[in-house]
């Protein structure tokens, strides 16, 4: 059989079967097409403005390394005029970050970009090792997840940068769409699909330029560009819903390669159908800037990026839902039943146990959306989760010192 020619240039030998659509391409065309698609995403969503200072959330992993490489390339090729900085978070877990931070340092040299490493100690006054020392191993995932969610924003703020880009890819977004359908969380479904998060009240805007890029293509791109990245297996197991959704997506991708992108499309469209959630985005006609959504519940690319409750949250949610059903069945108080059904109708999601792992945050009355009274970070509660956790930790420290 004669070697197949690249479907794009029709001169070189096709070496790569694109995971996204199974098109057979040569190496150069694959790299060009991959970059063009990210460029298309950036321009069609008008993610940047000339002269903007942008921090790339860099973990040393494949996603953020590819993001840094592509952004550098596109910034030069298309004259975006961006001032790019690598921003890395050090959780303060001895040994855990050493290799990945070394990778990021090499990336900084390779891409000729300034690197800023911000530690949990700087941001919160606590390293993860100190947290574990204080509260024990059990439940420290919650802390790491909550701290991590805010770390990039807080780090950017320290550097006076107003825009952070992260390496979340199409697989991550698709996963989040299915996950939120499974747990019935339309508010998060709506927020997680938008390419830009953070609204007018947040000081730092976040975006995901690789939102339409397949994880498999990111790996291929890194391989063929011989990028220097650190392949970590995530040290945490993903939360149950995300794990379940991830398995499902892998199967769907095998049946129909475009399924990942199709789920992203569905998620975007469904976000516009959520009652009370920024219907304005459909008025954009694809021309205006992408609608912004608050960043509070951003997609967690790696399972470790989200706070999660220990134990099986799917089981916990199932139990909670069953109790709700039982209560509805027994409900005699019509007034209460009505107000409940009204609430579930449009306004807000029920506060399911998945969301708040510890009892503490349950006591705090939820407000619609606002800012933490203590740190100013966006929060649906008076005091954000990080500040709640910190309060607990600091009390603990005080006691120990006494």
């Amino acid at each position, binding site marked *: 059989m004669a070697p197949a020619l690249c479907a794009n240039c029709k001169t070189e030998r096709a070496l790569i079967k694109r995971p996204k659509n199974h098109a057979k391409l040569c190496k150069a065309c694959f790299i060009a097409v991959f970059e063009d698609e990210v460029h298309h995403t950036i321009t069609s969503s008008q993610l940047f403005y000339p002269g903007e200072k942008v921090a790339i959330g860099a973990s040393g992993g494949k996603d953020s390394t590819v993001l840094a490489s592509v952004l550098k390339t596109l910034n030069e090729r298309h004259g975006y005029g961006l001032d790019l900085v690598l921003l890395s978070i050090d959780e303060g877990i001895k040994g855990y970050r050493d290799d990945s931070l070394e990778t990021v340092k090499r990336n900084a040299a390779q891409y000729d970009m300034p690197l800023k490493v911000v530690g949990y100690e700087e941001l919160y006054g606590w390293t993860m090792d100190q947290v574990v020392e204080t509260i024990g191993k059990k439940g420290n995932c919650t802390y790491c997840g909550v701290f991590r969610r805010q770390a990039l924003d807080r780090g950017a703020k320290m550097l006076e940068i107003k825009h952070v880009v992260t390496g979340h890819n199409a697989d991550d977004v698709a996963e989040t769409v299915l996950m939120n359908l499974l747990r019935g969380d339309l508010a998060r479904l709506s927020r997680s699909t938008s390419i830009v998060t953070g609204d007018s009240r947040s000081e730092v805007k976040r975006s995901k330029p690789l939102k339409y890029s397949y994880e498999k293509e990111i790996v291929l791109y890194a391989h063929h560009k011989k990028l220097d990245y650190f392949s970590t297996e995530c040290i945490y197991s993903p939360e149950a819903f995300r794990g*379940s959704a991830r398995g499902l997506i892998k199967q769907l991708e095998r049946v129909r390669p475009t399924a990942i992108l199709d789920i992203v499309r569905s998620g975007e469209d469904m976000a516009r159908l959520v*009652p009370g959630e920024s219907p304005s985005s459909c008025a954009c006609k694809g021309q205006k800037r992408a609608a912004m959504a608050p960043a509070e519940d951003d997609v967690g690319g790696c399972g470790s990026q989200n706070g999660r409750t220990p134990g099986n949250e799917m089981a916990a949610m199932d139990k909670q839902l069953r109790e709700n059903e039982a209560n509805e069945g027994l409900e005699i108080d019509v007034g209460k039943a009505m107000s409940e059904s009204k609430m579930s109708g449009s306004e807000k999601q029920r506060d399911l146990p998945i969301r708040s792992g510890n009892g503490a945050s349950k006591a705090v009355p939820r407000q619609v959306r606002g800012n933490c009274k203590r740190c100013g970070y966006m929060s649906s509660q008076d005091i954000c989760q990080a500040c709640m956790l910190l309060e607990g930790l600091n009390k603990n420290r005080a006691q120990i010192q006494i």
Partner: protein
Amino acid sequence: MTESNAAAGSLTRPCVKCRAQEATLDSRSQPVCRDCFTKFIATKCIKQVGILGKETRPPPPATKTGGPPTDTRRYLLGLSLGVSSTALLHLLNGNVEFQLSRGRSAPFDLIVIHIDASGDDSSPDTEAILARYRARYPRFTFHCVPLSSAVANLDLSSLPILSKEDEEPKDPHWWKTLPTAASRTDVARLLTRQALLAQAVTHNCQALLLGHSTTALAELTLAEAAKGRGFALPWVVQDGFAPSLPSSLLLPVPHGGGDGEEGVTGDGEEGGGDDGEVIKEVLVYHPLRDALRKELVIYAGLVDPPLTELISNTRENKDDRAVVSHKDLSIEEVMLRYFAEVEESYPSVVANVARTTGKLVRAGEGPGGERCGLCGMPLDEDGDQRWRGELGIQERSAAGTGGRLCYGCERSTGG
């Protein structure tokens, strides 16, 4: 009160509902007896049928002279010959019998349609199965309609698979020539739905009843999301009016046809008799939306005689088949397997999926809103605009008179 307590005392595992009988089943993690379980399923179904009954006022007289009595509602049941739609048929029959036994009139007329996607004409196999249904439920009218003829009039000229070979007459089973199992299954399902809606209109029915369980609706939600049809999901999963059908689909009903059905006439008088141009709105209802599939399977075995006698076994063992290759799997099958597991351990999570989709707003229905040429769902102008030329997906120049396709149908027919 004291009696049942005394009875409960002597039982080893009393039913939590009646406390009078031994619990032999687990329903939503509670021990229940057989009677309470069947009552539980029936109540869930009848509640939905009651809601539908309020939605559907009696239809106008079909003809001025000697039509059927017109104070009854008229529904069409889509019978797949599987467990859920058979259970629904049985429950609807039970509802009618109950009303008649109380000396009331039947709450609705029911026409049962099986859309046969298998072959050219309804196979002898299918006819034999339907004969068993007719024998068991003589009060209802059963029809078997080949899918190819039901959708023969649909204008599909915008489909590349058909527009390619203009000279040749189109294959009546063209969807079977699509390259992947995922596409074939998807398109056959869409066409079946369209065919049922068209049948409902031509049979002058106010509503199309579908047997989807909670589990099936959850599968449908995630499957359609996975096929890029998130925009149409509220139209597909919620109860309510279907988007109006293209007039090409509305075949004239054979007058006084030899199929033994009387009183169905084509010319609705309110349309002024202009041939088949009357486009009626059909409600789509899922009366079993609150029952899990595994509950319906149990139910089918509990009724006397069991419904399992009716349900053809050839159709059911498809699930047991070992996966040969992912190329042979459809997205529906992936979801079936997935939710079979979730349903086993987390039934309330399954129920929550359909409930969640129920909260989404139906969009794109406005006047002048275009419909997809294949699935009939409203097109998403804004989403299509945003995704135009996007991201390595080949764009297809809209050719033909069949109108545009939605994103999901483009995907399924594009190869």
